[in-house]
């Protein structure tokens, strides 16, 4: 099993163009980047992938020990670059938890990356009073895990035969399952724990790669204050606030994200 198959890696464009590596957030897969990525076709080399356990990755490769914390996912990112023969100048574009994963990868292999673009980043979702407010208490995050338990695909598959009856029609069962996120519920829980109980505040401070922080104006998961905190932690960073409510501007307002990235890359003499 190659790394490229394991992570369902999709590559577009010429390797000689600037390399954009798009990393998806928790609960999502690479297709969430489609609208943004399509705007860069023609003048960049694009890499899209799914983390092991997400999207169309190979679930057989999921190792509970490796992915118990975000380091394992950072290792995925590095391995993908290695598998593609990329040694430097990668522009990492991450959403949500991928920002922390990208930061860990950039600390581990600083020379691999040229720029880091963080969308909706939060180094720590938990509140740590009095100086840091991640937005959530432990109980809130446990509540999220409970909700996931009741909504996830494995759960749907578990119930589907019951719902469809004894002579269950696979089409009906399939339809029920597909209406949920196609993720293994046990793995999703594990990823959720790795994501929401992580504290990577110190790791961002170790990143030396220049970065752009794109924060949503009104985002319950990653507030502007958290964006400002990151801006202080990251040595060569710019902070830009997107006038967006929500946590996924790349889906709700792709135009804003595209422009922000293009402007930044032009300013950095990359595009």
């Amino acid at each position, binding site marked *: 099993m190659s790394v490229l198959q394991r992570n369902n890696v999709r590559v577009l464009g010429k390797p000689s163009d600037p390399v954009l590596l798009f990393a998806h957030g928790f609960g999502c897969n690479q297709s969430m980047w489609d609208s943004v990525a399509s705007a860069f076709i023609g003048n960049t080399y694009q890499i899209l992938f799914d983390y092991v356990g997400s999207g169309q990755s190979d679930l057989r490769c999921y190792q509970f020990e490796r992915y118990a914390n975000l380091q394992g996912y950072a290792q995925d990112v590095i391995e993908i670059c290695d598998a593609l023969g990329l040694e430097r100048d990668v522009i990492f574009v991450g959403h949500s938890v991928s920002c922390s994963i990208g930061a860990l990868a950039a600390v581990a292999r600083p020379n691999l990356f040229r720029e880091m673009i963080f969308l909706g980043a939060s180094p720590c979702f938990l509140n740590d009073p009095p100086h840091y407010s991640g937005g*959530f208490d432990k109980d*809130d*995050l446990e509540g999220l895990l409970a909700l996931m338990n009741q*909504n996830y695909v494995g759960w749907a598959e578990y119930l589907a035969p019951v719902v469809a009856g004894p002579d269950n029609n696979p089409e009906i069962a399939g339809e029920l399952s597909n209406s949920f996120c196609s993720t293994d519920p046990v793995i999703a829980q594990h990823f959720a724990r790795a994501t929401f109980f992580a504290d990577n505040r110190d790791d961002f401070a170790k990143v030396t790669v220049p970065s752009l922080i794109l924060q949503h104006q009104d985002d319950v998961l990653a507030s502007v204050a958290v964006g400002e905190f990151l801006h202080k932690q990251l040595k060569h960073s710019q902070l830009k606030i997107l006038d967006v409510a929500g946590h996924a501007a790349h889906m709700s307002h792709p135009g804003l994200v595209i422009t922000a990235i293009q402007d930044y890359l032009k300013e950095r003499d990359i595009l």
Partner: protein
Amino acid sequence: MSITDELSALPCSLIITDAFGKIVFMNALARIEFLPEQVTLPTAIEQLFPPAAKIFLQTHLWPMLRKEGQVREYYLNIKSKLGTSIPILVNVAAGVYSGESCYRWVLLPAYQRASFEQELLNARQQSLQYAQEVSVLKQRLQNILDAAQDIAIMTLDQMGVIQFTNLGAGKLLGYPYNELVGQNIEMLFCNHQETHAGLLRIKYYLNAIYTMPTAMESVLEFESTLAQQSGAIIDVLLQFRPVPGESNASPKQILLLATDISKRKQLERLQNDFVATISHEFRTPLTAILASLTLLSHRYENVLEEKAKRLVDLSVINSQRLKRLVNDLLDLGDITSGNVTINLQSCALEQLIERAVNEQTQASKLKQITLNVLMPEHVPSVCTDPDKFHRVLVNLLSNAIKFSPVNSTVNVQATAYASCVVLRIEDQGCGVKPEFESRLFTQFTQENNASNREYEGSGLGLAICKGLVNAMGGEIGYQSAQPHGAIFWFSCLRG
């Protein structure tokens, strides 16, 4: 009536948001249920949800909504007006409202479903946990059973099909791990007379265990030879015992323990060969001695003095005893080495019993013993070797007469079962002491030396009987009679 009025009148909570989640409309029910009084529209829909649901909304619901245009039947918690959190089912679909793109959110209370799902979820987690525990225990048990490498441990079903084996079974029988499972135990028996009798005994035993509730405690144990996968033959001690099912509904199984006794059998064979050779060597001079003494006793009866005649008669009697002992030894040697020929045939039970009883009538009369034969109403035929059957029954009858007090009764009772007939020979003698019962059917054993003097016998009779009965596919045993006395029983297959 305007569209807004119609939506307001819907019997479920409906909220309409713009493409970015800002609430542009709430129907009456939704306002009553979910809109806090101090809040005025427009506000973001996520404000209605507690923190956990907010994250879920952002990480799951919105991405899906944007990707697929709708979400169905999502389970979330929402803040109620009272400040508590209540479970709801959320269905969202993209649409148009006042000429703008919108999302329509239908919120259905889900108290019942929530508790039902929570129960199911708990049950699932519980069952997963149980399954894990069972799997751990199963592995532990398997490891323990596998560690017993010198003994083959198997379980059989009613038909004799192997259901489970430990590592030792594969090792003993020379089969790759688990290849024995699914095979019938018959496969392990090579095709000759001695093992054929063993198979008959197993069949009868399985049948009894599964049809007679009282058979649950019985154990079948015998020595046999089995064929390894390579074709090599090994000597084993086989022990079968029933294992109760985990519940009344689940079938019981038979535990089979097989131990390699090749070394012991090898020594036994050497010993048997030695005994057989010696016995043969004894027989020739003994025959000559006996012939001479008999001649002396008969032809010179009138010549010999009275004292010399008594001595000659005593020598004849003891030589005959010695001859019987030598013959018994040779017979036992043949039986244990499997050299005895068994001709199984369908025989009339009544005639077999009559013949044996007639032969013992003289002896019984000497002690004024009544021989009482009790037969079932419908006398079945039996599948047996008539001569061997006769020898067994005569031996047991003669023992019963020998150990009975004067003027008592010996009962011979035949009972027919589904697949066999059991004969019981009951006397009113002193019976067998419990501590001696386990050695009754072994060679050279009589209960005590005092008995040896009182009752003549080689101590081989019961061992020969056991060998013959087993060779015919039957079992032999002892139980004490009430209030005193002995019952010897043996079974033979129905003809």
